[in-house]
């Protein structure tokens, strides 16, 4: 009697842990996509709706390149190529506009995202691709207390952490990074101090495209890559970025994991078909009642807290 009860308890604990792990798996994907949004937002106040396409481009390019070069080199090249695409987008569509309205920027970045997606469809094709797992293969799994997850999830989390640390060092301790922060808090003052604000915006686009591309490579073994993958990832990315509080990278990672876990737990009670309805419903509630995000207050909502 007792033993069966304890077995049942262990079973449900194991299940709970498994839900937690699966939440972390999808949460890590959301988090790594969300980081890219914040960089451009912080320097320019723009939400780049084409961020998901940078993620897709990174993955697609890396898969194509990995046929001719070793994996690390392919990823590095993909990151560089995507950051050049980011620079191109900024120079062609943003740089020369004089004080564009928010509405205009939203529409331009949406248009760019459609163009990048369609370009990918016609450059590659509609087929699905994936990079090999960085360690182990499709079947490898790590088991902790009876619950399992793919080692690739650790890679995603590791790269997430590395990005947060890199960005924090970059924005606090390098001249370029500090100049970018200056532009974000007061553009006019920054220009008066001799900072080339336009170049800073270009750099922020390159940086976020590069980070998006790296994210695309790291998650590719888990999510697989296809020309259409950008938009759904981007929608989850915005959700997470806003949930954490726009502009706050660490909070975005935390919010990503949180959303993943909430989704996983929601699956245990409602049909999976409504998983996204719950995620976006949470976003709407946050927007209505606490637009600065879960981890921000009104003042820091707009300030660059890296």
């Amino acid at each position, binding site marked *: 009697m007792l033993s069966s009860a304890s077995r049942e308890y262990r079973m449900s604990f194991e299940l709970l842990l498994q839900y937690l792990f699966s939440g972390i798996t999808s949460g890590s994907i959301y988090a790594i996509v969300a980081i890219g949004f914040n960089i451009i937002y912080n320097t320019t106040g723009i939400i780049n709706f084409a961020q998901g396409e940078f993620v897709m481009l990174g993955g697609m390019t890396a898969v194509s390149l990995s046929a001719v070069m070793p994996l690390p080199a392919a990823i590095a090249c993909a990151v560089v190529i995507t950051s050049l695409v980011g620079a191109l987008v900024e120079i062609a569509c943003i740089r020369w506009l004089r004080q564009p309205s928010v*509405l205009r920027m939203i529409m331009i970045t949406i248009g760019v995202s459609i163009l990048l997606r369609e370009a990918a469809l016609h450059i590659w094709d509609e087929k699905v691709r994936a990079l090999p797992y960085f360690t182990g293969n499709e079947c490898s799994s790590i088991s902790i207390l009876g619950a399992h997850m793919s080692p690739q999830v650790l890679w995603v989390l590791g790269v997430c952490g590395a990005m947060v640390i890199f960005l924090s060092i970059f924005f606090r301790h390098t001249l370029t990074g500090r100049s970018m922060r200056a532009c974000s808090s007061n553009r006019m003052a920054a220009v008066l101090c001799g900072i080339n604000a336009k170049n800073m915006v270009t750099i922020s686009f390159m940086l976020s495209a590069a980070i998006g591309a790296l994210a695309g490579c790291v998650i590719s073994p888990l999510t697989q890559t296809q020309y259409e993958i950008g938009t759904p990832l981007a929608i989850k990315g915005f959700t997470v970025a806003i949930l954490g509080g726009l502009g706050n990278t660490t909070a975005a990672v935390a919010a990503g994991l949180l959303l993943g876990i909430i989704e996983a737990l929601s699956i245990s009670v409602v049909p999976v078909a409504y998983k996204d309805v719950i995620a976006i419903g949470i976003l709407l509630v946050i927007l209505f009642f606490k637009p600065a995000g879960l981890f921000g207050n009104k003042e820091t909502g707009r300030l660059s807290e890296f």
Partner: protein
Amino acid sequence: MKRLIPLCVLAVFVTAVQVAVTAAGQSFYLTQLTMAAYYTIVVIGLCMLMGYAGQISLGHAGFFAIGGYVSAALVTADFSAFARSGIGHAFVKAGFLALGKDAYGSAVALLNPCLACAAAILAAVAVAFLIGVPVLRLHGHYLAMATLGFGSIIYKIVLGTKVFGGADGLTGVPPFVLVPGLSVSGAMAERVPNYYVAWFLVCAAALFMHNLVDSRAGRALRAIHGNEEAASAMGVDTARYKLGLFVLSAVFAAVAGVFLTHYNGGIGPSEASIMKSIRYVAIVAVGGMANLWGAVAASVVLNFLSLRGYFGSYDEAVFGAILVLVMLFAPNGILIKADVWAKLGKRIHH
């Protein structure tokens, strides 16, 4: 009366096109022109919301889908169990429920499309109201994100719900009899009357909006677009006006959804997709944000070309390119290059 001139031109033009294509024996063009007309009604509502109240909506396909799906679900459902009940009997007597037989020969009770249409519009009003109250308090990116979120929730619900047919959508929607002898349906014999029904609705919607612009509410809305805080300080109840226009544009979208669903004989989830919402926004952008007639022209031309498949596999890319180019080089729309706002501003002071 001068204000009505463009409307008269539109009416004359619509008639001229019909006469011309029928005379040329090419009346099949009317099919796509009718479909384009229904999408134009959505665009008119959105144009007012974006141009006059300055509120972006990336979820208007959601309202179109609410209209189309609610009416389609109601007119294709079988109410025969309900028809046997007491109230049901009264419904049948009142003509709300029609008893008949389906394709397999079993008895069904079908709801009158008029009632379904009313229910669809009510649903759209209710949803627009519930969403509008909190959403319209937001600005900029938050507003864009919230409406985008609303649109994708509707899309996911449509895809995930059995009543709405999931990925297959709903089919077998019967004609919508407006008056005896005139019904909204895709039958080839009724192509010309349907063309006029659609364009009558477009003219009515445009006229309504046109009058609204020149009313007290219209002036208030323009003031909101110019500077919401200033308008508010001047005693304009900004929230009420914005909400009113939001609900109105949702009703326009829902009506378009109801009629197009009857015309096509069905509706699929692609009508609720984010890309569809973005397409409406792109069309408004081409026509010019506060330019009703420009938006109507842009909508007819672009939707017509798209529905005829001229863009082939580059359909989405064409809309993406249009959106980027227009927003880069002519943010006030390609049909007016002059600074509309300066002129509109002058009118407000008069």
